[in-house]
């Protein structure tokens, strides 16, 4: 079973995604910033990362993904961003990313991306 780490600095969005994936039957943990994300990942060992790009003052989603892939090179990464995705795609050209979503993103869309990862690997 896949373990999903949700990293989102917006509390209400974080709560909704976390609740949703838990109800879908996944093991889910969440973090509000980059530092917390790395700390949680240390004990939780996620297989899927769903992260916002901009995470405030302590680092962004790209930093988190790179760091986590050092421990688990198989980690599947899904990015969500409120900014245009062009700049985000440019900044993580050397990082394998399963899917990019522009906010507002539907839970149904996120769920299909996660199901796809679950089915293919």
């Amino acid at each position: 079973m896949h373990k999903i780490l949700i990293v989102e600095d917006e509390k209400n969005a974080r709560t909704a995604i976390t609740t949703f994936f838990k109800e879908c039957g996944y093991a889910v943990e969440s973090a509000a910033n980059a530092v917390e994300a790395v700390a949680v990942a240390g004990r939780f060992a996620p297989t899927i990362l769903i992260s916002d790009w901009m995470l405030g003052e302590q680092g962004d989603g790209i930093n988190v993904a790179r760091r986590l892939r050092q421990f688990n090179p198989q980690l599947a990464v899904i990015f969500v961003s409120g900014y245009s995705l062009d700049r985000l795609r440019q900044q993580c050209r050397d990082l394998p990313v399963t899917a990019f979503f522009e906010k507002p993103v539907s839970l149904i869309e996120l769920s299909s991306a996660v199901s796809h990862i679950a089915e293919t690997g």
Partner: protein
Amino acid sequence: MSKDLESINRELQRQVEALTQANHALNHLLKRTRTAVLFLDSRLNIQDFTPALGELFQVTRAVLSRPLRDIIADPDLESAVQKVQAGGTAEEQALHTADGRIYMVRMVADDAAGGSPAGVLLTFTDITRFMQAQEASQQRLALTKAEEKRQAERLSSLGALAAGMAHEINNPLNAILMNAELGLMSLEKKVDPERLVQILHRIVDDAKRGGSITRNVVQFARADNYVPQGLGDLNEIILASRKLVASMLQRYDVKLNFQLEPELPKLKLHQTALEQAVVNLINYAVKSGASQVNIHTARAGDQALFTVSDDGPRIVPGELGHVFDPFYTTRREGGGGAADLGLSLVHRIISDHGGTIDVESPAEGGVQFRIKLCLPADSPHA
């Protein structure tokens, strides 16, 4: 024989008359023509000129046999004339007169008199109106280009504002969408109604947040908000803003230091707007991880200098140009950054005061904002 001589004589007289007539016609033409023409002899002295030239340079025939420089003192023209004479060629040169008119002078070597070296014939065509029209058209072109540049800058800052605003609004929209979906699923599953209430509250909160963002943007975009209203004391404003940031400084454990010029004259300002600018600059430093913020005022001639510097990490190279973009997250080394209207508003307030603001972030760390505001013309001298 005498008959032959008579006919030759008649023929000669006829030709002399024809020549005299032609000479009269030529002189008449030269007198009547509005073209200013000047004949220089082989020594480059004035041999003759048309009345139009006399009027142009306010000279009478007393200048005949005098050198060119006696009526036109222009070393460039003189050397061009010498060049034309030496080369037997033609040349064109513009001549600016003391009364602001512009002439195109055409010079051509003229050996009509058969002398050696040849003389030079100069014609003066008034091109003042043409040149003025050309200058006006160039000015219009420059204005159009400047307007195009302003337009492009407006569009570019509008683009930056739109992108930033989209991000800010997309965040609450995202939370609204996700919670609404979750609410619908909860309804279908007939879960605890209390959970549905929580979800709906989250939706209400985010809808309100979206509303406040759009209100801020409208406030930011208003054109006449921050223009100076009267004379005020910049140092007092800086000190007054201390109260507004006190709790934040305590929470983040940041020290605020002042070095204020006591003799700084009063200047035209918008009190609350400048207070807001000071607060936003301190806020930026604190949120970027500084432990010390230094505020310094000084006078430099007819300007008040006002700097806010911090000891936080430096701004990531390449991001410095975006510092004042609305909602742009200007990252500082170590990942810090803030996406809001704070620094854009500072820029806006200073511009509305007719001042300038620039930012530096040296390699060794820290960020410094330098603001220049104009002192009133009647300020006491430093």
